[in-house]
């Protein structure tokens, strides 16, 4: 008895010390010590923070069967039998149990009896392509940052090559002195593990970057993909150098800001002139392109004024007869309309517009719109296109 008690104390001390050591590494741990792996795992789940199991039967008696994740159907039958704990299961003859409920029940019974030694399985963690670095002092210029980033890319690139992967997306996080951070994600136009390409993207971004706080650390995360080798179809062509194009865009972004660079796309709404700027897609499929094709415009091309010119419009029998604005003024020769549009009635910012196409005495064709009580000259039609 004394031996058992002293062994328990020894294991407990060892466990306690291990937990403390792990805690020093910022790792929380619970430790179970038992005669075999399965039992030790169960013990670890119940440990606070260390549990040493010497009498398996006593320990297992109160453990609910559901805790050891049996197959649901087996669990249901045992539940119907009034067997809710491993201790109860252990009292059922094993052979009779297997006869009735099959080998899965036998395995469960074995666990209820304390299990058997088995080989441990190696579980590899999912490989992450992450590098981070904390500077001793806040940095003032981009050079030290670029130096560190190149080192990081070299490390990651090696690991990518080892895993037969390429980078599809990079996320750069700069930790700032006031515990804020700056984060930017980059889509790699042509996924690659080429350090130079990846570095140029980061470099271009940092070149135009001005921060209000000094960086104290940096973190780089790479999202890997398998390298793709695809044969183009007969009439399909890609950018000659997608990454170079991406880099050019990045330079533009650095110059004018991210909200001003991209591909214009009409929004799916009846509201006139609603569009947004989206990031260019380098990997769109033919199907996506087809779905996103905008509706063809009808009639003459309209040259929009952004912003539109406010106007005063005089109506005769509800038809615009005179217009006064910075752009045009005078009598209206002819007017076509109204064309009415409205939407988003479910929002507070619901909108409606009434549009007219007008012809001025000099033959100029313009579009007027009325929003609320205000009139605007929205644009002029390209008569030359007739």
């Amino acid at each position, binding site marked *: 008895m004394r031996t058992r008690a002293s062994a328990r104390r020894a294991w407990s001390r060892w466990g306690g010390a291990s937990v403390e050591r792990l805690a020093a590494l910022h790792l929380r741990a619970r430790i179970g010590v038992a005669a075999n792996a399965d039992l030790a795992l169960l013990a670890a789940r119940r440990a606070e923070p260390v549990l040493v199991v010497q009498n398996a039967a006593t320990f297992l008696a109160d453990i609910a069967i559901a805790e050891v994740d049996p197959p649901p159907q087996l669990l249901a039958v045992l539940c*119907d039998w009034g067997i809710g704990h491993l201790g109860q299961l252990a009292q059922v003859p094993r052979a009779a149990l297997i*006869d*009735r409920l099959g080998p899965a029940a036998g395995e469960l019974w074995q666990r209820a009896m304390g299990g058997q030694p088995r080989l441990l399985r190696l579980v590899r963690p999912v490989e992450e392509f992450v590098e981070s670095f904390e500077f001793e002092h806040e940095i003032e210029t981009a050079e030290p940052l670029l130096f560190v980033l190149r080192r990081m890319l070299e490390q990651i690139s090696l690991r990518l090559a080892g895993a037969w992967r390429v980078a599809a997306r990079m996320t750069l996080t700069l930790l700032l002195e006031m515990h804020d951070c700056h984060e930017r994600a980059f889509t790699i136009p042509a996924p690659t593990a080429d350090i130079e390409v990846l570095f140029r993207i980061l470099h271009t971004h940092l070149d135009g970057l001005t921060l209000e706080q000094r960086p104290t650390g940096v973190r780089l995360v790479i999202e890997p993909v398998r390298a793709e080798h695809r044969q183009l179809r007969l009439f399909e062509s890609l950018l000659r150098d997608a990454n170079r194009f991406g880099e050019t865009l990045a330079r533009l972004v650095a110059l004018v800001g991210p909200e001003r660079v991209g591909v214009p796309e009409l929004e799916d*709404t009846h509201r006139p002139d609603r569009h947004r700027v989206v990031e260019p897609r380098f990997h769109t499929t033919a199907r996506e392109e087809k779905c*996103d094709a905008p*509706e063809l415009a009808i009639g003459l091309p309209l040259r929009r004024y952004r912003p539109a010119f406010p106007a005063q419009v005089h109506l005769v029998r509800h*038809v615009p007869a005179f217009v006064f604005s910075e752009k045009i003024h005078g009598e209206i020769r002819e007017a076509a309309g109204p*064309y009415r*549009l409205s939407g988003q009635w479910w*929002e507070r910012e619901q909108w409606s517009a009434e549009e007219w196409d007008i012809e001025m005495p000099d033959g100029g064709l313009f579009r007027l719109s009325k929003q609320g009580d205000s009139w605007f000259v929205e644009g002029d039609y390209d008569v030359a296109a007739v």
Partner: protein
Amino acid sequence: MLVAEGRGALDPIMTRFVELHARSAFSFLRGASQPERLAERAAQIGLPALALCDRDGVYAAPRLRTAGKEHGICAIVGAELTFEDGAVPVLAATHRGYRNLCALITRAKLRAPGSTCVPRVGRGVLAATDFRSRAPRGVHSGEDAATSARDGRPPRSSAARPTKAGTPVQWNELPEFADGLIALTGDKDGPVRRCLAREDFAGARACVGRLRAAFGDDNVYVEVQRHLRRGEELEIERLVQLARAERLPLLASNGPLHATREERAVLDVFTCARHHTHLDAAGRLLSANDERHLKSPAQMARLFADLPEAVENTVRLAGRLTFSLEELGYQFPRYEVPAGESMDTFLRKMTMAGARDRYGHLTPRVLAQLEHELALIGRLGFSGYFLIVWDLVNFCTAQGILVQGRGSAANSAVCYSLGITACDPIACDLLFERFLSEGRTTWPDIDLDLPSGDRRERVIQEVYRRYGPRGAAMTANVITFRGRSAMREIGKALNFSPDTIGRFSSLFGSGDYPHTLELDAQLREAGIPPEHPRTAAAVALYQKIYGLPRHLGQHSGGMIVCQGMLDTVMPLEHAAMPGRVVAQWDKDDCADLGIIKVDLLGLGMMAAMQDAIDLCQQRGTGISACESAAGFQPAVHNSHRLEACATFLAAIPKDDAATYDMMCAAETIGVFQIESRAQMATLPRMKPRCFYDVVIEVAIIRPGPIQGDMLHPFLARRAGREPVTYFDERLKPGLARTLGVPLFQEQLLKIAMVMADFSGSEAEELRRALSFHRSQERMEKVCVKLRAGMERKGVASAVIDQITKAVQSFAVYGFPESHAISFALIAYASAWMKVHRAPEFFASLLNNQPMGFYSSATLVKDAKRRGVQVRPVSVIESDWRCTIGADDSIRLGLCVVRGLKQEHGERIVAARPFASLADFQLRTQLPKATQRTLAKLGALNGLAAHRRDAQWKIEVTREPDDLFAQAEDDAALPLRAMDAVERAQADYSGAGITTGPHPMALLRARLPDIWRAADLARARNGLRVRIGGHVICRQRPGTAKGFVFVSLEDETGVANAILEPALFEKTRLLVTEEPFLIIEGPVQHSEGVIHVKARRIEPLFVRELSATPASHDFH
């Protein structure tokens, strides 16, 4: 150049115009206004006529006709027919054209393989998540035509695909049905405009050519619409070119999809529902503006100032459309009489023969009544109708199906003599004129109550067999958007999270709760606060969508038949149930148009009663001579089982003191009609002592009498606390038996005739208004007339108010006396059975579940309280259905076992007896899951020591030649036997019933301060008590001003608690979700009725019981 619509009267042009292509909400998700609203709006803006062209149907035509009459609008009938390549609106020019239209739609609808009638809106919260993944992306127009044009694919709208709702009309079948129809080229969904949208002018001409070939050169119009959208001028120009090229007239239409601009929001929500998307993602699927509303002639003249002939042609075309629903041409089938007989003479012969059976000696009074009725029936031409219903009753009799007529038919001695009804109207002094009168133009109403289930289905199928699938149909039942369904659809459209929609449904799914909580408060509780940017839209939409048609269902039993083809009277389509065909009109529409309906209603209690009587016959416990001596005549032909069954209702003694004693004690669980909590709370006050008291009891607990404040005056007068008075002494004969308080529809008619000089036809109008639940307006109109009549006669204003209130409250829901008598017969019979044939009664109720107010578990407990032993399911003893043993105990049938197939149950019964459990297993070969259920329930106990023993043993796989099987069985059992709580749990999870102790009995030791239900009678009034039990019923009647009634069952009976609205709102989740509750509050005793006024509510946790029997909630 277009000219703006004038908001003021700038232009005095009053060009006449007729809107010939409108759609209502009966286009199901393609229109947003009720037909009544369209008619009202049309009248407001000066439209002389309106054609409704709903998609593939004339669903709303009768409603438009009725509303049109009220508003002075001519209702034109039309429909949009779905072809493979688009929808073509057609208008019925003549009666023949209308018949063709109905037949064509029916052909397309019935060609479909499936079952549902119309596209249904997605249900459930999951649908909200589904559509996100399926939301069309990058689709730039809601118009199918535009989409297809852009993609360059062949145009085919989703609606044109063959669905269960119907298949498209084929172009090649059109000529057969085109006579009398006029076609328009349609709107953007039409084939012509789809071709033009693809720049396919030749294709458009080909489409027009097909229309011309089918309908004739003079019967095709090129439709132009102008919705103030860019690009449409080009289309109009092409349409004008097309019309000129084809020498066809132009026709202007606004293609209204809603009555006013405001309803555009509803249309957008419906569009989202149709496309399984939400408003944020719908983009250009939504309407571009709100122009598709009804426009006035002046507006249309201005819109089409450049094409005046298009507007003028609408008037010309309207002039050609001579058909109206008045000339529907419906004829009820003729009854084939023997040679030498007319229907009149044959009816007389059958009536007199039946009367002699019913009455024995025909007294002068009986003869006079029969002569009077027969003469009137003959004059009105209804003899065939009576004979056909009689024939149907005969079929039921021959098939051994119990049948009883109800409704106003019970006022007819002819119906009684023919065996259609079971109550003698002469003995009961019922007014025949309530059923049939000289002034009546509509068909009388004969409803037949049948045992629900297979037996009723047999009768329905017989009607189909006799008249053919296109000669008979069920009437439709229009399912409308109610609180939960409306908010679910709105929530999905507004992109509320599935959690929010689910929370709203679970919090408010059991009622709309207008009493205490406004909609915005309900939304707040569901997680949408008032400041949410979309709350206002949700509330506004809710008000607009509530009550709009959602989909078409079938009426519970209303069948219509026709002389000739019914599909030429109205379109028919598949019902949800296999083998059923449903008409496009509901019962009110049919009644409006003089289409006769026979209600074949299924009553669970009829099935139970028939089964109970059968059991009595089998066990030799029928009604003895001594029992019936004091009552009515015994069955004439006792030799025939069914006849004995059919005459049972009439033969039971109706003055049985024990039966009335049970009613007075409110021990009426399981009894037809008087088992509800409200009925049980009234019975001790009502103290019924004769059959007519039961009639009143059945009629008085209805929303009509309750809202009309008739319940309490009646009970006070009955108890002698209030003198019996009358509105007027002249009303005394009609109101004397209800102590001066009008309780029945007949009495209200009489009051109107006496106090407001209503003529027969005016009284008929009032009767229709009372029966016509749909139209509040109709009721208000009659009330105005009634009030004016009474004022003319100088009736005191207080009395006028009282009478008007009574009439209005009856519009909510009130019973005709004859109907109450029919129900009271069954109610009394079932009560008598409960008292005198309890085993048969309870066994039959259990065999016919689900039915009635209470679960099987409550019925079993009630049976035990009444001394009936209920024995558990046993594979050795039980049949498929519940049976009665020699000791009068009920043996639960295998049918109560959840998940047990009837085929397996019958296999068990056939394989009996079993030598052992192994023998049972080998010879039944049931699936392991079934064996487990049976073992867990204790159904194998006769073959094993106890449930766990059986559970252990059945897991062994048996082989026929296993020599050691017995040795296995004899081995020691390692499992302990179930305790009482485990048994209850197993019973509830496996069958929903336990024959063991009530769960509260098992908990009682833990609950020393909880009063038992049976002990409450001893608690002094006002004493604060705590009651606890299983919640068997939660109710919040519309008449109770937000109060909630909760019934808790324990091992001694049922205790009732009343919750004030504020307490309920505070504890809503607790009250609605917890299966066991403890309620604390003062006891209230009032005239033998005991309840606890809840002050505090808490859950009663019964950890061991995860399964509980169902409760009856908020019905």
